[in-house]
């Protein structure tokens, strides 16, 4: 479903963030991407929908002919509609209401003036209601996004990504600004929703424990290179040391 070939990114300051990533993700697979800060996790998922332009390499999406890196602007927008994204600090537009934030996920499908006057098709509105109900925030619909708590905001962020009706979710550190309880709830919600919709997801995550518990496949990234790719159960102390460096990992691997 998603295939990257020798994907590289060099920033203008000369920093090599990605040193050739080859990866293939089948339909409906939830992948956790782990690695230390600065390993290139965020850069990697942003090169997939070209929020960050890759320097070289290819990204095939949906079929072997559809290379995202070679698309023009309007085709790129069409692809972006099919890729949902969830962000680290929620990235809700704080001064818009919950409903507007959720509906903004449909922007790629409606014209400018309709979106300007907030006239979305009834079908989209119904879907928004359904999603808000699913995440348990139906009663918050008219609240401004900055009135919500962290966990609630991330739920709205999830709804915004899902209303795009995507084939792939890119998730950037969804739990970095949440407490442990909310972190688990959010991870569980994302994984459940992926299963319900047979959705593939790439989840960047710091927390090895959460990654092991929720993902089907783990990819370890270090300094822009893949150093591990396999089952969560295969994460051993030596592999964690390889990804993160020397530390006592015995407690983490224990489960």
């Amino acid at each position: 479903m998603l295939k990257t070939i020798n994907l590289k990114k060099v920033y203008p300051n000369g920093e090599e963030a990605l040193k050739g990533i080859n990866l293939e993700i089948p339909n409906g697979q939830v992948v956790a991407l782990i690695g230390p800060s600065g390993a290139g996790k965020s850069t990697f998922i942003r090169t997939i929908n070209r929020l960050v332009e890759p320097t070289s390499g290819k990204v095939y999406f949906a079929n072997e002919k559809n290379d995202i890196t070679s698309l023009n602007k309007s085709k790129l927008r069409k692809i972006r509609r099919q890729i949902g994204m969830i962000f680290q600090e929620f990235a809700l537009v704080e001064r818009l209401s919950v409903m507007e934030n959720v509906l903004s996920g449909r922007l790629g499908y409606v014209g400018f003036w309709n979106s300007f006057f907030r006239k979305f098709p009834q079908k989209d509105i119904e879907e928004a209601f359904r999603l808000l109900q699913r995440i348990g925030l139906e009663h918050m619909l008219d609240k401004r996004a900055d009135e919500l708590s962290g966990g609630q905001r991330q739920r709205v962020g999830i709804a915004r990504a899902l209303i795009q009706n995507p084939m792939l979710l890119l998730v950037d550190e969804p739990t970095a600004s949440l407490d442990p309880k909310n972190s688990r709830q959010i991870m569980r919600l994302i994984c459940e929703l992926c299963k319900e919709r047979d959705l593939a997801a790439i989840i960047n995550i710091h927390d090895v424990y959460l990654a092991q518990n929720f993902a089907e496949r783990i990819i370890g990234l270090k300094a822009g290179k893949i150093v591990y790719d396999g089952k969560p159960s295969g994460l051993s102390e030596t592999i964690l040391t390889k990804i993160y460096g020397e530390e006592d990992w015995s407690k983490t691997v224990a489960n």
Partner: protein
Amino acid sequence: MNDKKVIWKRKPLIKNRLLRIGLILLISTYLLSVFLTTEIDWQRILEGIPRGKNFIFAFFPPDFITRSDEILAGIFESLWMTIVATIVGILISIPVSLGAAKNIAPKFVYFLSRGVITLSRSFQEVILAIFFVKLMGFGPFAGMVTLSLSTIGFFAKLLSEDIEDINKSQAEAIKSTGSNWFQWVNYGVQPQVMPRFIGLSLYRLDINFRESAVIGIVGGGGIGSTLNTAFDRYEFETAAAVLIVIISIVMIVEYTSSHLRKLIK
């Protein structure tokens, strides 16, 4: 050797001693040279003091009555000018400020917009007014054009700074949904800069009214014309009345706009 006392002194503002002394020297030579090159006619000032006293007394009591219709007409004209100029200026400022924000505009548009801003900021309203009066004839239209133009420089500069400061991830999130550029501005940028936008609009309304009082002096219409006429006719009581009216309107505008700004937050 051991009887050296521990001394603490406040850390000086500028660490480098040489720089510190240099600065002091520089400032004193500057002040001296200003003093030496500025011709101040003390005789004239001494003469001026009693004259000034008479002059100031000529302002009292302020006379609102004799020229009341002229004062009223001037005030209203200033108000019309202010309202139209602020709206027109802001409408033009919106695209300019988008163009002058580094994070939005391509390089070429950026430099173009910055150029427009610098040009409109370089000249004080009065100088602009002189030229527009020359080009378009006396009256409020020239004044309005002047005020609109200087609104652009002020508004677009400050708004574009705010646009450059927006939260990037919110804007990025909107982009990732596949929105087009206009939708991205409408959803990702506009909500974030809206409070500043409204605050600046009210602030500029206030400034434009005050400026309308001076561009009248060079022929741009409004209350300034009334003031100028009063001075020309040596009707200082009327001039005093005009000044008092200006001050009180500015106070009212400022009071209401600060309240509105608090409401909008």
